[in-house]
């Protein structure tokens, strides 16, 4: 009887072990990384324009005796900003001449006239341009 139990136990253990081994083999196969083939695709980007570096204009050594244009590009509220900025310069830099130029079209920097830039080049020393909202 004892022998029968021992044989059955051994067989059971054998079955469990072999089942486990089979399962491990299957897992090993299942976990094998699937190698996806490589493909070649196009870069979808267009072509940007070349960039030519432009040096910035030399700065002023002082604001005293200089004329600074405050240019309102026309965005809402910029007129108020420039008015306040002019007041600040007048209070803090009384020897600086402030000129406000308004562009009321609301059309932004690109709508400023060539004549204005010419005037600044001839009569001004620097400009503050705004606002980029």
């Amino acid at each position, binding site marked *: 009887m004892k022998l029968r139990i021992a044989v059955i136990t051994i067989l059971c253990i054998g079955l469990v072990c072999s089942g486990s081994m089979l399962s491990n083999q299957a897992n090993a196969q299942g976990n094998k990384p699937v190698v996806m083939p*490589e493909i070649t695709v196009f*870069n979808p980007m267009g072509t940007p324009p070349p960039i030519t570096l432009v*040096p910035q204009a030399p700065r002023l050594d002082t604001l005293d005796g200089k004329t600074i244009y405050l240019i309102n590009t026309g965005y809402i509220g910029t007129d108020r900003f420039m008015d306040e900025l002019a007041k600040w310069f007048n209070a803090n830099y009384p020897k600086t001449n402030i000129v406000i130029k308004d562009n009321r079209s609301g059309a932004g920097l690109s709508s400023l006239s060539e004549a204005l830039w010419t005037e600044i080049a001839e009569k001004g020393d620097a400009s503050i*341009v705004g606002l980029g909202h």
Partner: protein
Amino acid sequence: MKKPAVPVIMHDFEKQEKEVSLNLGMPGLRIQYFRGPIWGKTNEQIRKQVMEGNNPITGRPVVQELVEKLTKPLTAEEKKTGELQRNVGPKTYTATPDELQRLFLEKRYTDFLPVILPTEEKVAEMLKFTSHDPDEVLGRMNPGSGAGETWTYTVKDAAVNAVMAGAEPEYVPIILALGSTGITAVNVSDNGFMAGAVINGHIRDEIGLNYEEGAVGPYAQANTTIGRAWSLLSINGGNCGKVGTTYMGTIGNPMNLIGIIIAENEEKSPFKPLSVRRGFKEGENVVTLFTGWGILSAKNWAADVWGPNMNYPEIIKEIYGTQDGWLFGTCTVLSPPIADFVRDAGYDTVEKFTEWVTGQQPGTKPSFRGGNLNSGIRRAGGTFTVIVTGGSNNNYFSMGGMVPSQSVQIDQWR
């Protein structure tokens, strides 16, 4: 002119301005940033909150920095000259499909939805539907509103983006026609502009554009993927749609994903097609581009008028009067039953209806009281455009701000 100038810009635009100044050849341009917005502030608020405040980026006083930017001597970097090399990466990428999807996502070649990977075979299929040279320059595009630099793209670039969008090759002539205009589908504006297109002609049926129920919805392959292809071409060909630099919508606009691609329901419309009203022949394949804020069900506007007895023309006129016509005018997209109501009310042409709604002769250039943002007073409505599409299962229509720009003959891109 070699005189120092300092732009004053809201700090929220720093990333964009750095890119813009780089594009203009002045990567270190001295820009003064402030905390905005300014719009709606009193003089006192501007003085206290903005001018006497700090630059949110540096934490230093705005006015002090402003003076320094005018007076501090230039650095060697700021005096540099020469050419800067641009690099948009290799012409092709080789990897597994999963890796490529990830790469396209990381490089921001997509709209954050998965794309069809543009293999040589798929792109070649697309190019079979046009006689144009793949290397032909198709268009030049910038993000609109006068911002950003202008990029160039070829017929092949458009085909690559069309593949990515999931378009079928037979849609290519329309996608090329859209791309040929250089008009972006993804505008930079903080206002959140969208783009749309109206398609007329027999090509509508050839490629299966939907102009019945759900016509302006996203559930028709041709409408949706043509719109997506235009958006992807704008993103990749025109460098548009990059949040922080070339996409600055304060709120943004969900219509930027696929736009609104409308095929007119010419068969059920009592009016001449839009293309014919714009000077093209009956039956000719034409795409007309639109820009605006988009459209919304008219039921959203007109309260207390929806009942058993409806006066649709009057409702349209009333809504027209509520629209800010300054930028985009007013566009109404009518279902065929609503268009029939308009005709039956005595307006058998769009021109007659337009004259009645706007109070102006058709073709009259809209005039505005004031005419600039600062005045705060502008004529309502502006340009009035009528499009007929959709099903006949109920009496609905949409309205909004959308203005037509170019109309392009599609067959020239076959």
